[in-house]
């Protein structure tokens, strides 16, 4: 990494990127295309967080079976994020509770944060990508 710094003649640029996901899957494409950005973004060695708020928490719901609507079930890709070293997944507690869900309903481990903590996390970012 220090090689890169010297080559570029400046401090290596690591920013805190947050992907803010607030929409349900399948009804719109945002969940899927957000995930596609995350996968590409993983190659850039930035500090990446994925946040699931409101209906975005439904993206991580276990047991999705989308054959009947003619769409591909892309939810297994969330499980592959670990292989891309994307490991910071956060879910808002209030959003889960409003939907009667718990961390056990989710297909990947995600840290559950209350609104106050999550708000602080949002404030600590450099770049927020919303879909």
């Amino acid at each position, binding site marked *: 990494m220090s090689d890169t710094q010297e080559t570029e003649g400046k401090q290596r640029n690591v920013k805190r990127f947050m992907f803010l996901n607030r929409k349900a899957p*399948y*009804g*719109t*494409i945002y969940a899927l295309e957000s995930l596609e950005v995350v996968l590409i973004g993983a190659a850039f060695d930035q500090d990446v967080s994925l946040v699931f708020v409101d209906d975005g928490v439904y993206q991580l719901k276990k047991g999705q079976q989308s054959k009947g*609507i*003619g*769409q*591909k079930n892309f939810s297994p890709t969330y499980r592959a994020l670990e292989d891309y070293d994307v490991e910071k997944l956060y879910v808002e507690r209030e959003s889960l509770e409003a939907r009667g869900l718990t961390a056990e309903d989710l297909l990947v481990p995600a840290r559950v944060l209350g609104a106050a903590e999550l708000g602080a996390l949002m404030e600590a970012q450099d770049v927020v990508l919303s879909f």
Partner: protein
Amino acid sequence: MKFGILVNEGPYQHQASDSAYQFAVAALARGHQIYRVFFYNDGVNNANKLTEPPQDDRNITRQWSALAAEHDIDMVVCVAAGMRRGIKDELLAPGFHISGLGQLIQAGIEADRLVVFGD
């Protein structure tokens, strides 16, 4: 029974066109007739023949074209909405044709039911 279908959103971004397609397939399987599918608002983007989604995904435009060919369905792309969004004759996939909003009203008059899919 004769169904008219109105699609107000483009492919992929919203589920509207998928739902409309599934509805049309099911209606035909039940022995009903599709009087016309009218594409309005961003729905006109469903007619773009250049769409090329990933191999493991459905090609919505091609699905509509195939259904129209098999069942001789009239698929109308609104000329005004299409002009606004750059969907013109040279871009149309098989089975789609461009016409005026009158075709939507006509579908409302002639079909027994008009079912709207949008956002």
